[in-house]
């Protein structure tokens, strides 16, 4: 057998060319889906956040050798980086240079005084240039972060308005990223949505019989993390239910439906009302075998 040109091999080659063209069409079509761009954007946002933190921390640490008092006085890392980048060494500080940054006159005076009595060492031109570059990078990253955040907000409103309404744009986008797109999120059961992002705890629970996680990414939702501990599981479950419905409406119908959010608010109100008081503690049962005869839970996984 060889690759000689017979009518049969020509047919196969024609079939192959058609298959390649069809495969490329399918790939192209899949790559233009707006929800996949949204998934990339939210991941870029989370990456940028991390990178921004690292860069700003490094800039402020390095600059701290020269002017340690300043980082105590300016809590916002990005504002600090902006000062590092725009003003530079201690010698360049003046009330004018510090104006227009939202500091009170008193604060500016305190900063000038701190400058005069600073315990920081000298810094060479070369070192300062590097610290300033780091500061500039942090300022840029902060701007990029804003752009990405706005993009996620506006794209979520377009692509998945109901998920954005119920879960919030960033959390909705993170869920979508975990699921692998709006289509995948729309076919996930609510119970899975509830613990997306808590896979480690879930599998630990399956393996060891520890209590299953109540929430994954959903913990970031303010309705969950601001609630008292004993309500969080119930709230996360309700929230996941509504997000599952919202994702399906977004994917299959594609129109806004205000009743989902209204229903959620009503259910949340009901939970807060009904479970106002913490539950009665069950009597201590540590160090006693469990009902099915297995040894007691290990300390780490025990019920609190």
């Amino acid at each position, binding site marked *: *057998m*060889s*690759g000689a040109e017979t009518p049969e091999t020509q047919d*196969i*080659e024609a*079939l*192959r060319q058609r*298959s*390649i063209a*069809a*495969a*490329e069409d*399918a*790939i192209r*079509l*899949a*790559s233009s889906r707006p929800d996949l761009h949204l998934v990339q954007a939210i991941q870029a946002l989370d990456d940028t956040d991390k990178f921004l933190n690292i860069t700003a921390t490094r800039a402020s640490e390095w600059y701290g050798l020269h002017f340690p008092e300043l980082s105590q006085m300016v809590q916002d890392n990005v504002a600090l980086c902006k000062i590092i980048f725009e003003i530079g060494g201690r010698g360049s500080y003046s009330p004018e240079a510090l104006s227009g940054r939202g500091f009170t006159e008193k604060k500016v005076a305190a900063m000038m005084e701190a400058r005069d009595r600073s315990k920081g060492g000298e810094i060479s031109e070369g070192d300062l240039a590097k610290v300033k570059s780091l500061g500039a990078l942090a300022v840029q990253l902060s701007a990029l972060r804003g752009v990405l955040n706005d993009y996620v907000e506006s794209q979520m409103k377009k692509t998945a308005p109901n998920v954005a309404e119920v879960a919030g744009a960033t959390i909705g986008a993170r869920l979508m990223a975990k699921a692998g797109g709006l289509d995948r999120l729309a076919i996930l059961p609510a119970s899975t949505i509830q613990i997306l992002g808590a896979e480690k705890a879930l*599998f630990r629970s*399956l*393996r060891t019989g520890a209590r299953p996680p109540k929430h994954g990414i959903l913990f970031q939702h303010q309705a969950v993390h601001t609630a008292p501990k004993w309500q969080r599981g119930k709230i996360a479950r309700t929230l996941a239910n509504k997000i599952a419905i919202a994702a399906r409406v977004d994917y299959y119908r594609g129109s806004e439906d205000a009743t989902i959010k209204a229903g959620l608010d009503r259910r949340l109100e009901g939970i807060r009302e009904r479970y106002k008081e913490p539950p009665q503690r069950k009597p201590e049962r540590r160090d006693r075998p469990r009902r099915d005869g297995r040894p007691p839970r290990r300390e780490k996984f025990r019920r609190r």
Partner: protein
Amino acid sequence: MSRLLREERLGRTALLTQNLAPGKRVYNEDLVRRGGAEYRTWDPFRSKLAAAIIKGLPDTVVAEGTKVLYLGASTGTTVSHVSDLVGPGGMVIGVEFSPRVAREFVERVARERKNVIPYVADARDPSKYSVARVDLVYCDIAQPDQTEIAIANCTAMLKPGGTLLLVVKARSIDVLKDPEKVFKDEKGKLEGRGFEVLKVFELSPFEKDHALIHALAPR
């Protein structure tokens, strides 16, 4: 000279396949010359088929001229070696569901190799790519019902008595069940449908909790 070579290196078996697209790499593998032909190294830590061959799967299973249905082509690294093995007279129908990884498969493998026909399709629906009878079905998909999917594809496209190579990912079928038990259960499913299971190759140390089942379809 055979399209598959084994060489002993530092007490380990290395595999080489004769490059069907000479001068071209698929995934930065090494290209070497042996007996006037170009060969590509085939890493058992990256390819479960290579691991199975090192663990004792006979070379003759993927022989020159074989027509193969390959489910779960992914980025096409293993497909490219199967394409090397079956040679110009053979054929590989490669099916991949995820457009993201299929992009690399189509670009680096299907476009470069005349014996590879790519499909971006769901292996649950063989009618989308059922274009020929094949001699061998290779199935490496991470789905809880992967064995049923493989059987459906054999029914649709495998010739009677043809070969099924089924990669069993114990962790995709049931995270909690003992892998040995999963392998046994999947083997039982095949036998229940009239397949003759020749051998189950456990793929450690190359892959954890994976096995490759070598079976023959009912006649």
